[in-house]
């Protein structure tokens, strides 16, 4: 029941914030050198002359009708543009998550199992380094190495999958790594600490005492239990992926909702900002809901607890 309130709350905060920060969208829409009359006309046409609560309810009424409004500048319908851009951001986020999981989780597991070894120290160093660096910088470094020095991958730009699948996927590699490596760093740290805690448990000792293979102990008994906190983080990471996508999409010129939001903020295009934030809030809330459901799949005790 709280979910709609969270989403509505987010829209109210954004609606008010964009109107409080300096910058007049009516002025931006007609150019700063326009006359007073043009600015006032633009303000009226954009419904910015109404009191803020009236503007909000008018917008909300439109949203319930399925209309997220049109860009102040291009007149492109926001919903149309979001539908076109969402798959790009979703693809980038999924690839980034895959990078995060594929690199981060095994690194964390090995680090925990080989605690104190050179491998563990190296992994911990890169872990701290990974989540300390800005993905912006990482993106640029990857471009220099993989697009300039070793011209293997394209340095940004977007080719639709339907036009050329190979070029499309090649174009997604660097953005996905840039966005995914900081996540991998977090996952590696989380997995390590979680695994270390689990490895100390009595049932692990029991499993080993039974004479189980070490691999079986680690992957079947330890890792599965260590994954619970990781799943929570995964839900939270949807927010990170969305905010990270703003920068990564802008750097690499990907037409996702991140770059859409970035350009809208720069130009004070309120309908785009409001529509995009609404969609991001919905995604965030829904993904956390999915995470809650996933708990019961990972840990049957949660499901059993509810039944009791």
């Amino acid at each position: 029941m709280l979910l709609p309130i969270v989403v509505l709350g987010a829209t109210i905060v954004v609606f008010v914030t964009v109107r409080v920060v300096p910058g007049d969208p009516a002025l931006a829409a007609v150019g700063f050198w326009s006359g007073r009359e043009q600015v006032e006309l633009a303000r009226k046409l954009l419904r910015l002359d109404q009191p803020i609560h009236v503007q909000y309810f008018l917008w909300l009424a439109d949203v319930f009708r399925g209309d997220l409004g049109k860009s102040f500048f291009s007149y492109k319908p926001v919903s149309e543009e979001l539908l076109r851009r969402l798959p790009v951001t979703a693809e980038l986020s999924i690839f980034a998550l895959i990078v995060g999981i594929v690199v981060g989780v095994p690194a964390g597991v090995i680090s925990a199992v080989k605690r104190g070894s050179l491998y563990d120290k190296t992994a911990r160093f890169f872990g701290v380094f990974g989540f300390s660096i800005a993905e912006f910088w990482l993106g640029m470094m990857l471009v220099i190495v993989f697009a300039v020095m070793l011209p293997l991958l394209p340095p940004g730009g977007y080719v639709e999958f339907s036009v050329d699948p190979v070029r499309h996927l090649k174009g997604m590699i660097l953005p996905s790594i840039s966005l995914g490596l900081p996540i991998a760093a977090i996952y590696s740290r989380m997995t390590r600490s979680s695994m270390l805690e689990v490895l100390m448990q009595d049932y692990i000792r029991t499993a080993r005492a039974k004479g189980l293979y070490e691999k079986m102990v680690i992957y079947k008994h330890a890792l599965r239990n260590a994954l619970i906190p990781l799943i929570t983080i995964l839900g939270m990471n949807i927010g990170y992926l969305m905010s990270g996508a703003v920068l990564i999409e802008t750097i690499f010129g990907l037409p996702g909702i991140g770059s859409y939001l970035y350009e809208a903020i720069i130009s004070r295009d309120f309908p785009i900002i409001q529509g995009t934030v609404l969609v991001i809030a919905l995604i965030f809330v829904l993904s956390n809901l999915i995470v809650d459901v996933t708990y019961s799949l990972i840990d049957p005790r949660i499901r059993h607890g509810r039944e009791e």
Partner: protein
Amino acid sequence: MKRYNRKYEIAITDDKQNGYIFRAKMDRRRALSSAAKIAIGAGVAVVVAGGIAAYFATRPPEKIVETVIQEKTVVETVAGKEVTRTLVETVTPSPTIVTTTPTVRPTTPIRGGKLILQHRVQVRNLDPRRATSIDCLYVTLMTHDSLVRYSGDIDKGITIVPHLAESYRKIDEYRYEFKLRKGVKFHDGTELTARDVEYTMLTFWGFHDWNKKFVSPHSVFYAPYFDPEKLEVVDDYTIRIGTRDDYPNYGPFLWDLPRLSIIPEKASEEMGDRYNLNPIGTGPFKFVKWEEPVISLVRNDDYWVKGLPYLDAIDYVTITEPAVAEVRLLTGYVDLILGVPFKDIEAIDKTPGFGATSGRSWENCFLMINSIKPYLESKYVRQALLYAINKEAILKSVYQGHGIIGMPGYIPPWHWAYNPEIKPYPYDPSKAKDLLAKGGYPDGFRVELMVNNVYPWLDVAQMVKQDWEAIGIKVDIKPGEEEASYAFVFDLSYDIFLTRFNGGLLSYDPHGPHFTWLYGKMPEGFRDDIVKQKGGQYWPHGMWWGMWHGPEAEKAWDLIDKGAKTDDINKRKQIYGELQKIIAEEVAPAVQPIILANQLAAFKDTVHEFKQDFGGRFYAENIWIER
């Protein structure tokens, strides 16, 4: 597997030593394996570091640009009249980049191919009536045509030439008559007639019903001068355009027309706001789709200029990050990039297979000074601000020599209206200190310097701050986005705003957006309280952001008005010469140019005939690609 288990058996018996068990039990094989891993890791690190070092080591060294002052007098014909111009070069910019066409090169244009063109700013409008920035104009110039066009270049002089109009003539002191070319087709197949020209004029000027639903920011240029009553369709191919009764022989008449891209009435009225998403014009390229970050255009096979355009298609791509944009050029993903950072242009130019242009333009980096602030009201203080700035150092270090020092009279030294007596304020901190004392602030004051929060303006602001602090003025830099900063300009709460303005984009005429907007009076009813308080008068329009006031300002306003009421270019030159003296002497608070930056572009050397004019415009129909 057995060995693996054995180690863990030990770990279970002693938890405290669990972490060090491998080290204690490491056998020869494992030691060799670890050593090999370390060696491989170190090898990879050395290769990567070596690669990075080699990359930077092979970059061309920075070029030092020497400052030279040159003057030359040329006599030329502008708009049918003979005019003497004195060209003053305060600095020789970067002559190595003025022209870059390689020597071994086919000279005959080749038809076909797609040009992938990249810019850093996202396009917001494709309807020329709503387009306010250069990025929109880049595209609308490809899809639309105007009655007349600018021709020539800065060195040889800019003139007006007929384009969609076959010819034009002045019929009385208010009106011009334009004969249109016959058989010109819009992209939707309808024929261009004088009705479309009439519709275009009315919607641009703000006198049509279309303007109740959409805003044409350009109306601020035309509404005070052009008269909708004098707009007369004589026949399908003849139209007369006239000015208001109080503006006979309106000087900027023809100079203001190239910006009016002709719109088809039928399509515009039927499509409403969708016209902005599916623009239709008579231009050399047809609009196909606009899906960020790409705007796709294809060749207009029915273009009225036979044989043009050469290209089959153009993709206009937006990449906001300059470093990525450059890498995309150098790795062959795009053909041409606009708006290259000053620091990178020479390196690209020297890269085999690539070229660059650095052309003079009317892109001003200027100070907007709010003269209603008590400490900025005295002209001596404002002069001190200019004397204190080391403009040459800014030009060399921030702009890498790609530009010239701005003239305090506003008009650039390459313009026909330039008064050669006007020279930049020299860098003289001790004189600045004296003037500060003369203005009543011997110990300086604290001032807020608002600035666009991006390169290169933020870098310029740092240097200005350093210079002003050297004469005792405390400076707080306030970076912000351009749009947000203008909110502080409009409520007049700012002190000084360091920003940019490309007037050449809008008109070559000094009246146009230049003198009226920057130094003219405010519109009646706007900022009444301040205008009354300062005893100011009203002007039909004008920004007056600096709130320039006083007897000298009034003299300037009279000259601005006088300059627009004659089309005798020599008379106008004289009037504007006087006006520039006042602006320079007063350091007129609205706009004080510091640097006139060059327009920079880089491209593959297979791209031919790419030329930007003083406003950054280029005509894509002449571009061809060597394949």
